């Protein structure tokens, strides 16, 4: 009780100033997105724009092919999220509740996959995708064509299964009482029905968490998307498109436009996060338990 005795002024001061530090860059992004030509970068620095015009947002819409970028980002994110949820849940159920030879081995393998950092795979993934047999004009030996690198599938491919996702769902499925499953089996339900009817509904909270973690990561992914978009500009995602605009046009003039595009691209994730933040927070904490 003693530690909540009085109004902790110092703590408030510290936490609030820290929070301001966290939020100010976002506010600066929003403010800059309204600044007029010649207004950003002008000395002395001013936080507030002179007027709140929407010209930069209009410019962002015309200079960037935002509909295409959005469509690609949404497609990739949806592909990854759905796939991670499905594969994690199926595998998690098998590892938690089904008895089969080699189960421990498979589980250990799943844990091991979490050990390898993504940078190890950039080069081999790209080369494997481009030499994928019988795809994109390739022959049986992966020669002659583009393989899978020339499709939106390539963007999602390396992220479709997630070892952590399998681990997470398994830990949750374990807590489902065996009696429920056994009773359903006696009623003649197959394993697929069990998974669909019992496991999925029972693990909904963890699936929401996993979906949110996956969604945020997939939406924000930059390096792999940059690589694939270099091979095929048609599959460019939002972060890559905006960065391209940033890199190549006179920064003093385009910065407000870039900021406007960033605001548009950050908003969906931020909104989703704010609505579902409890689940997200739990996901981060759970990932601390592994």
């Amino acid at each position: 009780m003693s530690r909540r005795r009085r109004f902790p002024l110092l703590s408030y001061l510290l936490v609030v100033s820290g929070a301001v530090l966290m939020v100010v860059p976002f506010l600066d992004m929003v403010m800059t997105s309204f600044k007029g030509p010649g207004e950003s970068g002008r000395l002395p620095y001013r936080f507030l724009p002179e007027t709140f015009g929407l010209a930069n947002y209009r410019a962002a819409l015309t200079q960037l092919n935002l509909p295409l970028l959005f469509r690609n980002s949404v497609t990739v994110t949806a592909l990854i999220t759905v796939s991670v949820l499905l594969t994690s849940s199926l595998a998690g159920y098998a590892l938690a509740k089904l008895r089969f030879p080699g189960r421990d081995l498979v589980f250990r393998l799943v844990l091991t996959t979490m050990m390898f950092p993504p940078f190890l795979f950039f080069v081999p993934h790209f080369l494997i995708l481009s030499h994928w047999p019988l795809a994109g004009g390739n022959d049986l030996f992966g020669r002659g064509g583009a393989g899978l690198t020339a499709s939106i599938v390539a963007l999602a491919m390396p992220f479709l299964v997630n070892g952590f996702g399998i681990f997470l769902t398994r830990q949750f499925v374990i807590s489902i009482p065996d009696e429920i499953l056994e009773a359903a089996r006696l009623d003649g339900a197959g394993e697929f029905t069990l998974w669909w009817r019992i496991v999925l509904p029972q693990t909904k909270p963890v699936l929401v968490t996993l979906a949110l973690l996956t969604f945020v990561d997939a939406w924000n992914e930059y390096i792999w998307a940059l690589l694939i978009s270099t091979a095929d500009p048609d599959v460019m995602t939002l972060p890559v498109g905006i960065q391209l605009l940033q890199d190549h046009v006179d920064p003093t003039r385009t910065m407000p436009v870039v900021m406007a595009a960033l605001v548009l691209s950050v908003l969906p994730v931020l909104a989703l996060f704010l609505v579902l933040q409890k689940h997200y927070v739990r996901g981060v904490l759970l990932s601390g338990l592994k």
Partner: protein
Amino acid sequence: MTRPRRGLGRRHFALALPSALLASGCAGRHQGTGRPGDPIVLTLLTHYSSGVLRKALQEPVDEWNATHDRVKVRTEAVEFTDLLTTFMVRQAAGQGADIIQPYCLWTGQLVRAGVLRPAPPEHAEEIRRGYSAAAVRAASAAGGVYGYPTEVQTYALYCNTRLLRAAGFGEPPRTWPELEEAAARTTRRDGYGNTLVQGFGLSVYDDSTTVGQTLALLNAAGGRFVTADGGRTALDSPAGRAVFELEHRLVARGASVPGVNVYQAFPSGQVAMVISAGWWTGSLRPLMGADYREVGVAPVPVPAAGDRHATLSTGFLLGVNAACRHPDEAWEFLRWLNADRTRVRGGATVTRMSALQAAVGSLTGRADDIRTLLGRGGDPNLRPFLDALAYAVPEPNGPGAQQAKTLLRANIEALWTGQQSVDQALRSIRRQVDREVARSW
């Protein structure tokens, strides 16, 4: 699986081709339908991605497409900073363009990687005959010619004649001592020590300023970056030391402020002199308007009066991808663009490439063409760059040239920002670059 249909609207596809041709399945996206009778579509990847450059290239391409039924050419562009990565990544992805326009610096790397196809004998002959030796050497690797030299850049000294006159110099400096004196006398600072005008712009903004002007000075001093066989650095020499000491003195005296972007500072009258390439005239003219009158161009100063002129030349070439399925057609297009002569506005008979480059303020390796075009009312400031074609030293283009250049740039920046002394910089460049260029492949 078949390739998903590609959206074409945003690709500025200038040709009126039946859309069925573009929706074709497994044949690569640039190969057309492959059906007999349908045209072959060749893709051309370049960095002429915006503004006048894009338009200048598109004009002859449109002309070709309008007059040729069997072979069509489609241009694709990325920014220069992404160009090398785009070549490499697309090639690895089996999506390399049929015709590419790489920077000559990369010739060796692209040949080693099997991206560029050697020019067929008749084209190689045509190229050797039609261009200056430096341009041919820049488009060659290991003795073979790999493409038509297109844009050629030489380096010279840009001066703000108003600032020079105000400091008492009627003429641009000819020697290094004159350069140093002019730089020192044109430099101005305010009461707080902030530089208002720097005498000589040394900018870490990009390769072209950092490495380009250092190598131009090095060549002017009779030095070389790498040995003739390309196997070792030659920078750690009296000439190299002299260049680094000159730059070091300029920075130490405050006549150069490397943090400032000279591409912005020079046009606004905050820099008296910069060494840069000829293309810059094309962007300075519209940018400076009437003030462009004050811009003068002179050959890169030499260490002492009476020394022979020399400078750096860089450039681009148009070559055919080793993976291109219609190489004969591609080479034929390149010959049409680069070697066939046509009558242009004003009555001169030059190649389409020369007309294109002159229109955007650049040069080609065909000095006669350019001289003809400049004689008909071109920018007089381009003349020194044209004259330099005769004595310029091409940038080395061995297999590790880009890496060597990147290493050189990092060390020059370290020298300018005071992180390395002249000795340290020379030694570390020798060690780093030697290791890079000497690697056996």
